[in-house]
């Protein structure tokens, strides 16, 4: 029983670690990218290049995780171009795959949030001397309600994702087994009670992260 709960703790911890890392990296990429797309569009109008970039982002919303997993599997496999990194069947490889899945979502939601900040506010920042990154940072802070929603949605996708982590991680006990892949395993074995317990733990982890993000989001906003 003690052993079991320790393994459980390790699985939940790895779930949290993989989802938080991939969401963190995806946010570092996606939030500036979303802000860039929104600010560019506003400054220069709807150029074809911007429309194509947006089309790619929104299309990747619908990327099946198993497909992302397969692509990353090929990339990371021994003969693949990134095989030398030795990331296949490691948490690092799982994070890699999830970044691919989560970044478009964070980008898209951040784009919408930044685009919805009033033009007058953006111009006010410019008239006070903000340019480039300072301007983008200001607008991101103004849009923090939606930008943090982008992080929440991204984390939700990451922690609940199973296809990519299963393919790239391999569901190796004590190494790459996470809550979702453990649920699949237990369900397959007919251990429904365990599967449901794991599911509840997953929800509890998601709820904890939501509370933290919600606190940050609402601080000094209302």
């Amino acid at each position, binding site marked *: 029983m003690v052993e079991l709960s320790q393994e459980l703790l390790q699985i939940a911890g790895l779930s949290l670690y993989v989802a938080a890392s991939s969401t963190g990296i995806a946010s570092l990429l996606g939030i500036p990218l979303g802000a860039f797309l929104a600010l560019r569009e506003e400054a220069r109008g709807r150029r074809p290049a911007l429309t194509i970039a947006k089309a790619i982002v929104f299309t990747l919303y619908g990327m099946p995780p198993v497909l992302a997993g397969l692509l990353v599997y090929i990339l990371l496999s021994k003969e693949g171009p990134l095989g030398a990194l030795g990331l296949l069947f490691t948490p690092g490889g799982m994070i890699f795959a999830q970044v691919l899945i989560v970044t478009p979502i964070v980008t898209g939601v951040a784009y919408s949030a930044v685009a919805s900040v*009033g033009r*007058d*506010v953006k*111009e*006010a*920042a*410019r*008239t*006070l*001397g*903000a340019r480039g990154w*300072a301007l983008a940072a*200001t607008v991101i802070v*103004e849009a923090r309600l939606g930008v943090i929603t982008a992080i929440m949605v991204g984390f939700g996708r990451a922690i609940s994702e199973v296809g990519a982590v299963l393919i790239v991680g391999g569901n190796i006990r004590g190494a790459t087994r996470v809550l979702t892949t453990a649920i699949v395993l237990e369900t397959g074995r007919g251990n429904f009670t365990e599967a449901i317990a794991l599911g509840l733990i997953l929800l509890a982890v998601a709820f904890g992260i939501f509370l933290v993000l919600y606190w940050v989001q609402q601080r*000094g*906003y209302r």
Partner: protein
Amino acid sequence: MTVSVRLRGVQKSFGAKRVLDGVDLAVEPQEVFALVGPSGAGKTTLLRIVAGLDGPDAGEVVVDGTANPRSSGLGREVGLVMQRPAVFRRTVFDNVAYGLHLQGLPEEEIDRRVSAALDRVGLRDARDAKAWTLSAGEAQRVCFARAAVLRPKLLLLDEFTANLDPANVSLLEGAVTAYHRETQATIVIVTHNLFQAKRVARRAGLLLGGKLVETADVETFFTNPRNERTRAFVRGEMPY
């Protein structure tokens, strides 16, 4: 600290509509200049071009000896207060400190300058208030303080007291006059309130039909203008 503004043949169209059709304007250093004209005459468009927020389609804009400034001086040399107050979703203090932070000034200097700027617009006690909860008049005072705290040599005010109650109008006009007295900055104030133009400015000009019809010192402009259309405008006979 002297900045002049020179516009020559400035044109600007939106789609097929030519809003500015060859505007010539000279604002002298340290002058307070009122730009008046009916709604839709292109006053905002002109001010945005002077500020460098937009570029002209044709013609030349020279601010402080620099041609077609393209917003390079915004925030340091040139300040702009817009008609609708657009505050950041931050505290009043953080709004006014915004431009100073961008300049990377030390915290104590920022604190001192922001406090002084808030005092001047009667917002000393609102320093920790959330700016987005303020009344329109208070929010516009934040916007004025936010621009003035940067000590721009050229201050552009776009109908910045329109829709405000008399107490706020008078407070803001007082703040403009005080700013001018302290800094000798060049000020261009766009207004459709002719009384405001008289109270605040030394010279005035009428923008109409895409052109600057007439400029004169306020006394002449309001009592004895040369141009027929200026005469009609200041008498309130112009339909708009």
